[in-house]
């Protein structure tokens, strides 16, 4: 399984619909300070079900919606979608490709979709738990957090190893 496509729309600084196609192997993301690179990492963490705003460098969950600027009004909602290549059957679903989306409206209403069908957050978490992805916290290493792994308490490190079991 690997990440084939990422679409971001109205999430943080990605006001317009923006798409990234990925191949297997290493894709580098470069750009000036403040251009939106870590926002891309936040988008991936968010679509995998992250519920804690602080893990997305925000104070409230609505802060991930594009807040507007001189020319554009604030967005009404934020949406992130990923398409995963499932030809190896990693996700227990009968599809060659699985798409997962998350949407948050300014009203606070949030939606999750798997292959464009609405599901509950619990369904997404279960799906990922069976596929050993999602909250697998070490798979997305945020900026400046590299040595946070070393600052964990011994019992927190234990749960990292348990997850890998």
């Amino acid at each position, binding site marked *: 399984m690997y990440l084939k496509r990422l679409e971001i729309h109205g999430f943080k600084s990605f006001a317009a619909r923006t798409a990234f196609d990925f191949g297997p192997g290493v894709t580098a993301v470069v750009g000036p300070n403040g251009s939106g690179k870590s926002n*891309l990492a936040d988008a991936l963490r968010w679509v995998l079900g992250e519920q804690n705003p602080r893990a997305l460098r925000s104070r409230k969950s609505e802060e991930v919606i594009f807040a507007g600027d001189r020319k554009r009004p604030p967005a009404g909602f934020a949406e992130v979608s990923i398409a995963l290549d499932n030809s190896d059957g990693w996700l227990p679903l009968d599809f060659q490709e699985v798409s997962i989306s998350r949407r948050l409206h300014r009203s606070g209403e949030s939606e999750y979709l798997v292959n464009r069908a609405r599901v509950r957050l619990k369904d997404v978490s279960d799906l990922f738990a069976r596929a050993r992805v999602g909250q697998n916290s070490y798979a997305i290493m945020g900026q400046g957090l590299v*040595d946070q792994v*070393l600052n964990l308490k011994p019992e927190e490190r234990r749960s990292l190893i348990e997850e890998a079991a």
Partner: protein
Amino acid sequence: VRERFRESFHAVNADFGRYFKTFFGGGNARLALTEPEDYGESGVDILAQPPGKRQQHLQLLSGGERSLAAVALLFALLETNPAPFCVLDEVDAALDEANVGRFSETLATLAQQTQFVLITHNRSTVQAAGAIYGITMSGDGVSTVLSLRLDEHEPAGGQ
């Protein structure tokens, strides 16, 4: 559960030691149980010994040594429990040139089984990538994307 933890502990420990030696060009690193032999409840300590130095508490390691030890542990976890993809956001910021080289070589090998999205300011880390995306902020605070497929670009001028 106890049995599975024991197996995963030994697997991660072995890989952690291996990646550490690759990154530091020697030395030793290992995981230790805070309550030895109690695989059911015990917490996990990390012991690191860069080459030529004595075994020391993690706090005494330098900024770059800490980054390298943390990435060695991350790669060991990915070996035991492969994730479909992994995002690394400027993990190379504190590394000197020699260590950036060792990091990107090891990344290129691990990328045969795990996909990586690698955010970096470091030109030499970019060499390890098969594709590059450039993100810029247009004058009005909105991120836009440029795809700089590696094969089209002279890597040195990449950014």
